[in-house]
């Protein structure tokens, strides 16, 4: 298992443990409305969705599910194109550069950087808040983001991240038995995710929202759309 994966699993785990006790904090926004592009459209580049679904086995070991993940990615993507969700925003798919492209390294690094920054925000602003980040929200990807602007003609980029797990029958049995015997209920499946909007003129993260709940289901179209709607709640238009 890669270090990244285990880190994400542990973020999910911490999220699940704390979900019950912490009040859901409001999301962050530093802008009221979006600046339209030259063609007067409010265009947002939609970055590759970082989603992974898994089955939570009896012991709590997560089993990655390729088929579920594939459908979740499709459902989330088509939800964003749904007029009721997009609501006037023109989401354009970002196409990753080919190897040999002059911006190949820079754009790949930018995507990775966002992954690291997004996880840091989720963890240090919301799940386990850091004292030093209590009254500020100053995360930025830096000016390399302008390369993305040049490539997509969009003023903003949206990054979506989701980890969704579902309890197996064995896990449910363990939860019930453990609760009955000890009064403590081990965690079941959960849905953790975030949406992050980056201003491509300076790389600043201008809006961020996160999701952390025991329900939800990205394996089917309607509930997946619901999750996307929840993630986009409060996004500047």
């Amino acid at each position, binding site marked *: *298992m*890669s270090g*990244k*994966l285990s880190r994400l699993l542990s973020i999910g785990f911490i999220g699940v443990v704390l979900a019950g006790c912490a009040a859901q904090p409001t999301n962050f926004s530093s802008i009221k409305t979006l600046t339209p592009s030259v063609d007067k459209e409010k265009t947002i580049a939609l970055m590759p969705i970082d989603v*992974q679904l*898994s089955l939570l*086995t*009896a*012991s*709590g*070991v997560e*089993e*990655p*599910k*390729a*088929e579920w*993940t*594939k459908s979740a990615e499709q459902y989330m993507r088509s939800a964003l194109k749904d007029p009721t969700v997009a609501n006037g925003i023109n989401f354009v798919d970002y196409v990753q550069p080919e*190897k040999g492209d002059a911006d*190949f*390294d820079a754009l*790949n690094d930018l995507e*990775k950087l966002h992954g690291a920054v997004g996880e840091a925000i989720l963890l240090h602003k919301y799940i386990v808040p850091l004292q030093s980040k209590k009254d500020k929200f100053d995360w930025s990807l830096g000016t390399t983001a302008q390369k993305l602007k040049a490539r997509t003609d969009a003023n903003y980029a949206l990054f979506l991240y989701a980890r969704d797990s579902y309890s197996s029958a*064995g896990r449910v049995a*363990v939860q019930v*038995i*453990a609760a009955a*015997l*000890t*009064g403590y209920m081990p965690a079941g499946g959960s849905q953790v995710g975030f949406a992050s909007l980056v201003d491509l003129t300076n790389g600043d993260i201008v809006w961020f929202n996160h999701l952390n709940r025991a329900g939800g289901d990205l394996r089917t179209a309607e509930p997946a759309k619901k999750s996307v709607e929840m993630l986009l709640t409060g996004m500047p238009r």
Partner: protein
Amino acid sequence: MRVLVSALLITCAIQAHGFEQLPSLVKPGFAPSTHELEGGLWMVMANAEEDLQRSPLLIDRPDLNRYLMDIVCRLVESYCGDIRVYVIRTPHFNATMAPNGMMQIWTGLLIRVRNEAQLAAIIGHEIGHYLRRHSLQRYEDLKMKATFSTVIALGLGGAVAAGGVSPDIANLASSVGNFALLASIFSYSRSHESEADKFGIQLLDTAGYDVDQASLVWGQILKEEDSATQKKSSGSLFFSSHPSPSKRLETLASYANDLTEHEQLHEQGATDFAQAINPLLFTVLEDQLNTGDFGRSRFVLEQLQSGEHDQSIVSFFLGELYRSRNEEGDRDRAAAYFRQAISSDSPTPQAYRALGMIELKNKNLDAAKARFREYLSLQPEAKDRKMIEFYLEY
């Protein structure tokens, strides 16, 4: 044809000596269904592979990759489209295999194996992990043991709830349970390592490589450990995921013994190997010296002296090794190696620079300038050109 002949010879070996060949558990061109557990593991690894392809640590040299893929295809022709080899810039001895056929070879390994047969032994071992589906078995084993552990924990929890056992004792018992479990997970993986060793040597044999080279690798690793300045902690052996090098050496040597009673091609491929490694030898040795372990670096360099590698580079780094240690007499030792480096037909430019620096320290200004001029004429694009020109005007 040669493969077929060798395969038949192995059949004879089975009858005569009891070297039982391990069959592959994967069909050529295999890709799991996305509905199955294996499909899930492949998905995770495909993401990791995409990251790896963009990693700054990836050594992207088409010539070297072709050379490594040729070895893979020679070992397992029908699977050569299923396995991808990536060279990773890390100065230690290691190679890994993922369930989807993504193989990683660390650069530190490339300067520690002495010929193509030794490299093929390692590659064959990794292919063994893939063809014997070890990742999947390990995941399923882990899951089963974790379930078992959960059931034990629930049982103890129940006993505490009923007032039978104090919570302290339950915690202790539970942690002892996990301790034993952890050990058993690693021992399971040690049996995989042994199986992969066996699979590797049988591939080596079928492909016509010198099978004795497989155990020699571990002999070299043991000797390096002896000469290391910073020893690996011996305590970690208990939890080590691999069998001990001496045990592997012994087993592989006995397999080789079973296999070599028949006439075989005994190919070591030292020349091809050195030629494939030479273009990145400078960088890899630089990384090795930067680990700061004098004993290990000296062992590796001295071992390379008897290989067919670019000896000018090897001599240069032996010089660098002593120059940076800087003990009594090291400056002279370094100078001798640098002089050896420039006596080659294709001298390493940096050796002239290093000699110039030593002359400068010895206050032989004219000799230093002459060396620096030679350095710049060989390396006109040198990054430190400005600094060297400053010395020339001194």
